[in-house]
């Protein structure tokens, strides 16, 4: 016990990653168990087509959950992502159907419009909740309504349709049976993982989630980091809007109702603490898979809609309870 600075030479990034790796292993096991269960009880589950389906179906939630992870890590929450996605989709839908553009320009315009809309909404969330130190729960609840209203206003509550063919192509393109839109989401996960683990920015987000005051007194602008986290979340809502449009080839102002709750569930099931400071985006990836596999598998085994909803709720509660014990034993 009196030994000073016990030898220790490995460039070990942080015990964080070790701990979160263990934690992710736990979530991974749960996912594996689900997959095993459905493989045994339905003949269609483990087929190439169905795997493609699952990947397509979790993509939007995964994209939203990646951004949500940033916000929850700093101890915030963003309830507006579903509405912001719809707003971004409608704005992009208006842009893509503007007359006088070739397909390539129209698509580029739509992508820019969707991401800018998302970024703007996220930034507003961040600036207001960080500047006045207000609970993000209520600010983003306001934004939930603003963005939904804006989506309906801009679209006049009409479904926008007839997008360029190339856009639709992108939405349904596959590489070896893996949807390209899913690869986009996976790329976002990897970027987020890198940012959170290997950059000063990521380190300080964890720091803010754990002890905002200590980070502030160490001379960092907590304000801008918070704004950045919410902006990232808005950005992913914009990306989700593009995925939505490419996949369904329409923009609907009533898209994404309740999506925020699914995204939050994916993050929490993935082991990120709602009070911030602890968690990982790899966990979020696994959490999104658990939700997606459950939604898919329960339909395949023919469970009724209502039972399906109940079981999804049970899984969320079980995940949080398990996480409580995981955190308790990890800290001993």
């Amino acid at each position, binding site marked *: 016990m009196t030994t000073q600075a016990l030898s220790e030479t490995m460039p070990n990034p942080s015990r964080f990653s070790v701990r979160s790796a263990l934690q992710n292993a736990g979530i991974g096991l749960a996912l594996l168990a689900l997959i095993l269960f459905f493989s045994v009880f*339905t003949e*269609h589950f483990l*087929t190439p*087509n*169905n795997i493609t*389906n699952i990947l*397509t*179906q979790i993509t*939007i939630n995964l994209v939203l959950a990646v951004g949500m992870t940033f916000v929850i890590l700093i101890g915030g929450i963003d309830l507006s992502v579903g509405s912001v996605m719809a707003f971004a989709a409608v704005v992009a839908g208006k842009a893509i159907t503007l007359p006088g553009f070739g397909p390539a320009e129209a698509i580029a315009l739509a992508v820019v419009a969707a991401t800018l809309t998302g970024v703007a909404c996220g930034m507003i969330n961040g600036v207001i909740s960080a500047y006045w130190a207000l609970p993000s729960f209520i600010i983003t*609840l306001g934004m939930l*309504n603003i963005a*939904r209203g804006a989506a*309906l206003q801009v679209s*006049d*509550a*009409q*479904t*926008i*349709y*007839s997008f360029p063919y190339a856009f639709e192509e992108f939405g*349904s393109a596959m590489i070896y049976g893996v949807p390209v839109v899913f690869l986009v989401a996976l790329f976002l996960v990897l970027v987020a993982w890198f940012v959170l683990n290997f950059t000063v920015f990521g380190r300080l987000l964890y720091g803010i989630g754990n002890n905002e005051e200590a980070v502030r007194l160490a001379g960092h602008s907590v304000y801008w980091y918070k704004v950045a986290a919410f902006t990232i979340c808005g950005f992913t809502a914009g990306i989700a809007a593009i995925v*939505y449009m490419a*996949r*369904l*080839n*329409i923009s*609907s*102002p*009533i*898209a*994404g*109702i309740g999506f925020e709750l699914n995204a939050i569930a994916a993050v929490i099931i993935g082991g990120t603490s709602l009070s911030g400071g602890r968690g990982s985006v790899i966990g979020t990836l696994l959490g999104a898979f658990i939700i997606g596999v459950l*939604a*898919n598998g329960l*339909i*395949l085994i*023919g469970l009724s*809609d*209502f039972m399906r909803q109940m079981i999804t709720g049970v899984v969320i509660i079980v995940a949080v309870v398990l996480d409580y014990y995981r955190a308790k034993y990890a800290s001993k």
Partner: protein
Amino acid sequence: MKLLKIAAAAATGLALLAGTAQADDKPVVGLIMKSLANEFFQNMMAGAQAHEEKRGDYKLLAVGMQNETDFESQINAVENFITQGVDAIVVAPADSRAMVRPLKKAMAAGIVVVNFDVALDADAKKQQNIELAFVGPDNRGGAKLAGDALGKKLGAGGKVVIIEGNPGADNANERRLGFEDSVAEFELELLDSRTAHWETEEANTVFSNMLTAHPDIQGVMAANDSMAIGVVKALESAGRDDIVVVGFDNIPAVGPMIADGRMLATVDQFGTDMAANSIDLALEVVKGGPQLEGWVKTPIELVTAN
């Protein structure tokens, strides 16, 4: 959610204040709509406003809801209209039972009440001891029109699934029953029936999974066109062009799909005119015409490529 309701109620109040400020001797009609986030009702509202301008002999006070299930604000709106002393209330109820009691109050206050779009529950009406006519389309009959088109195309033994609207919503129920009538009549085989909450993305996901579980599906009956679009996209992704889809509502976005055969049919219930027609009927009664009775059916029409 509470906030939404408060906001909606506040908006309602403001609309009413504005309304009375300029009241003259023209009859005043209070129109209570469902969710204006739904393009069907949005279009209906626009139709009513155009109608007011065209007729010019009445004053329209219109109130919309935040969402499909927000019947609390509808009740508030009825009560506010009673206080304002409107001549007629034209209402598309969000809940077929909850709305009966407030409407009874309105009738007792001498206001002409016209119930359109969704019929009030017959038992609830009996319990409250009121007689109230219903003006609206036959959702069940309309769904059966679409279902029959599908049945004719597939013939007996055709394997079909139903994509339902919100569980508990009356029009969702009626449309499901209409589809089931077709299933029975044409001896189709119903493989599965699930809700996608009227929404495109969810319909896309739910139907993809149904298709995985039942690759032998031959036909799909979607309770609205938004969901039908999701189904069509799922079929395209799965590379299936052998499955026949029918929808409901005839929204503009499905026009091209029907034209090029990706959808077999949809049903038009002329929603744009529905509120306006109901207002006409209400004004007849206000002017001393006979009370409406039973079910005043509004037109419905099957829409196909030819």
